[in-house]
């Protein structure tokens, strides 16, 4: 009965001040929505940025420690390691076009589509079509659709140029062929010169160690320019998100404190009366903190929904796909709403406890 009367009285009190409670809940909702949204984006950003940064290319290069070739099986083993987003096996060698020595790069041509290499022409449609570095176009008078004869260790093979690749590096002077053709031309059996690895930004040291443990006899080098740029970008974005979160939380607390302060001030007479008829400080704390819990929980839950939608909208706009939010985020949002509300209510409630009923109840 004591509890049910408390809830009855509490609900009547709250229903009388719906406007203030709604405003306080809205403030919390907006703060939690921003915080939830930023946390959602932060948690998903590594993965999403990782896929976006694939265009930067590999950030680790694995080669044989002895300077020879790697077994092709190493590619599969590395691809299964935690933090490895993409792998690409390359074999390098020399072939000849009209007795002119040309570097060839054997790789999975399909994997190039996910990189930032610029293509002039078309991607190869079949095994006989290959790509050429852009510098070879003029040097060897090559044209798309034109056949070229490549001679290597095992004789002459004929290919069609489907397009020219431009990257601004050594690849611009090479011919890009599929791995089986490279093995055939170079007369090597399922071997790789290097494995280029795209590791998750910020985890490269761990991934390097795992590769060296998993594939014996390998040496792993970090492509520092790419890795440092990625990690720096990621850190800056995360720092920005943390700063925005802190500012939003602070603003929300000030807003709730102001609303709760006005609420307490408005109810001075009620507080004075409650004290006069025997309410202890805990009775009064219970009353106001219950209101803070109600406001915080409602604002937190609504803020989660809004933040979730915000996260997905941002992810869709920035990355063209949705983000998987962590499972703990709904509970964390409600908890954040409660913390904001309770902390912001603390000082107004402390003020309320100091009211002298004798003074308040004498006021006209």
């Amino acid at each position: 009965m004591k509890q049910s009367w408390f809830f009855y009285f509490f609900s009547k009190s709250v229903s009388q001040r719906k406007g203030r409670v709604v405003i306080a809940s809205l403030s919390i909702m907006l703060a939690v929505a921003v915080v939830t949204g930023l946390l959602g984006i932060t948690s998903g950003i590594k993965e999403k940025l990782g896929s976006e940064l694939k265009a930067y290319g590999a950030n680790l290069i694995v080669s044989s420690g002895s300077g020879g070739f790697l077994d092709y099986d190493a590619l599969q083993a590395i691809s299964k390691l935690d933090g490895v987003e993409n792998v690409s096996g390359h074999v390098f060698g020399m072939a000849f076009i009209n007795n002119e020595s040309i570097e060839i790069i054997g790789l999975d041509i399909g994997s190039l589509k996910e990189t930032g290499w610029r293509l002039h022409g078309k991607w190869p449609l079949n095994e006989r079509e290959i790509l050429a570095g852009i510098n070879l176009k003029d040097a060897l008078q090559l044209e798309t659709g034109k056949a070229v004869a490549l001679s290597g260790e095992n004789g002459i093979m004929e290919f069609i140029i489907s397009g020219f690749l431009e990257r601004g590096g050594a690849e611009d002077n090479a011919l890009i062929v599929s791995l089986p053709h490279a093995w055939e031309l170079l007369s090597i059996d399922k071997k790789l010169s290097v494995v280029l690895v795209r590791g998750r930004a910020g985890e490269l040291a761990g991934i390097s160690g795992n590769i060296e443990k998993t594939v014996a006899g390998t040496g792993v080098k970090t492509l520092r320019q790419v890795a440092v740029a990625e990690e720096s970008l990621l850190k800056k974005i995360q720092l920005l998100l943390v700063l925005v979160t802190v500012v939003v939380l602070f603003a929300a607390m000030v807003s709730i404190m102001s609303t709760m302060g006005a609420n307490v001030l408005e109810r001075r007479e009620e507080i004075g009366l409650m004290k006069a008829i025997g309410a202890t400080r805990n009775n009064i704390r219970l009353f106001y903190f219950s209101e803070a819990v109600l406001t915080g929980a409602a604002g937190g839950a609504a803020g989660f929904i809004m933040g979730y939608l915000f996260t997905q909208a941002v992810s869709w706009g920035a990355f063209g796909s949705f983000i998987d939010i962590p499972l703990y985020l709904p509970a964390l949002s409600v908890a954040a709403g409660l913390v904001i509300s309770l902390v912001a209510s603390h000082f107004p409630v402390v003020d309320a406890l100091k009211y002298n009923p004798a003074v308040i109840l004498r006021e006209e």
Partner: protein
Amino acid sequence: MTNNKSFIQVRNLVKEYKTAYALRGVSMTVEKGQWINIMGPSGSGKSTLLNIIGGLDNSTSGDVIIDSTDVEALDEDHLAIFRREQIGFIFQQSHLIPYLTAVENVMLAQYFHSMADEEEAGEALKRVGLGQRLHHRPSQLSGGEQQRICIARALINSPGILLADEPTGNLDRDNTEIILELLDSIHREDHFTIVLVTHDPFVSKWGDRVLQMEDGHIVGDEFIKERVKGA
């Protein structure tokens, strides 16, 4: 333990504000069941004395002993418990919670004391003549009716003392008389102690005794030979 003599003892009570004294060494005793009126002009210290007796305010020095309890020695929470167990208050303004009905306002006092009981609260309101107004909100009632709710609220937990600060200060003469007759009637049945502050000589005729205060001192103490009403 309750003793018929000196139910309330006030000894050398001083209340000093930054720039003035409200009480300058007030001493008095009140017997159990006595109705005492404290009269005096504004600023004489009568409300301050009442608030200190009721534990709503602290003194600068001196003692207030009520039924063997040293009120001045109690901390804030024990004072709150003491108030809900021992004291019923009536103020000049009714100080009713506007969104609660008459019966709910009485139940609020029950809630802080022990347990809200609608039937008992309704009976208390019937006793003050508001049986037909149980579910009215304060704004739907007259000033006199609101003060009657306050009487019911003050007495619902059967306190030993009723402290009333200008309880009829906002009422016209007819309503003042109704309220005082009601208090008189209940007092004769329940025999609790009443300390009533007023500046109205008409009000001071009810009760057993009148204390006169001026400038923080008690300057007169007179027993009323015959109460205005009653047997």
